[in-house]
């Protein structure tokens, strides 16, 4: 299925008033470029967070060049980056994390170093690990809009609180340097 046909179909839908904008999800750079040539892409939705940064190599430069926004999903690593998950946490079988490789006991323990880092920066800034993780993402580009999932008001308010936390270029460097030393355990799916 050529992506030009998909983009062309959405173009028709936009002209018909059925949808207002065109988005893509988890698409590689060349495909974004081809789709964008047929129907301008408003946003790409892809996983991006402090512990999953694959979009940085080819995707972010392409989006910047073409003027496409990025909507990172799982910006809090499916809840792990809140620091509230430990090896004693159990997941109901209806919870998709019950069969996610980053939520095995081994991965949860091994990746604790990421939370330690977020907690350290958080202590300096008076913020929670989740707020640092979101502030880090917001600081990457002004056209990034993360979509943390939430079903609890206290969690939503915590996430909203990340917007007032400003990370300096030194903070961002410190996080980058520390993360470069950390080998995150477990595939993301």
């Amino acid at each position, binding site marked *: *299925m*050529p*992506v030009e*046909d*998909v983009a*062309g*179909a*959405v173009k*028709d*839908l936009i002209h*018909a*008033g*059925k*949808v*207002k*904008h*065109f*988005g*893509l*999800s*988890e*698409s*590689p750079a060349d*495909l974004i470029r081809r*789709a964008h040539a047929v129907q*301008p*892409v*408003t*946003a790409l*939705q892809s996983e991006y967070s402090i512990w999953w940064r694959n979009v940085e190599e080819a995707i972010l430069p392409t*989006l910047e060049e*073409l*003027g*496409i*926004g990025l*909507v990172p*999903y799982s910006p809090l690593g499916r809840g792990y980056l809140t620091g509230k998950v430990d090896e004693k946490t159990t997941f*109901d079988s*209806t*919870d*998709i994390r019950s069969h996610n490789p980053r939520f095995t006991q081994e991965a949860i323990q091994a990746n604790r170093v990421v939370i330690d880092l977020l907690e350290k920066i958080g202590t300096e800034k008076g913020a929670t690990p989740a707020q640092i993780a979101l502030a880090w993402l*917001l600081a990457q580009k*002004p*056209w*990034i*809009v*993360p*979509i*943390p*999932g*939430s*079903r*609890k*008001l206290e969690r*939503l*308010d915590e*996430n*909203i609180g*990340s*917007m007032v936390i400003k990370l300096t270029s030194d903070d961002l460097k410190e996080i980058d340097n520390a993360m470069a030393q950390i080998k995150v355990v477990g595939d993301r799916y």
Partner: protein
Amino acid sequence: MEKRKLGKSGLEVSALGLGCMRMSFGDTPTDKQEMITFLHKAVERGITFFDTAEVYGPFTNEELVGEALEPFRGKVVIATKFGWKHDPVKGPHPRVGLDSRPSRSSGWLRPPSDVCVLRPLTFSTSTGQTQTCRSKMWPALSRTLSMPAR
């Protein structure tokens, strides 16, 4: 709340959006009314960008988000994802083929969705024919065009 523009499109949304999947999919079940109240509180706090998909449920998440946000039509942006044909057992599934989703979506998601998100890489036709997405989508779209526009 701080707003951000999604690229050059001019679409402006709150700097943080709200992922709605787990309100009806991939996690322990929730009470729909509670989730509607929660979504209203998110709007009160200035969130104007909400993410859902046809496969979340399937369908029930779009229904929830559409119903909850109907009072805020024109003031909020909903992003959804479509494109897979429906298997009676598996629901929307990439192996079953392409589907003309936005037509149905604009019924469930009461305000027309502002961003539609596709996963074209995973598209494949069940018959193996090289039928284009465009020709597959048009018949269903034409049917919907005869309905009152939302």
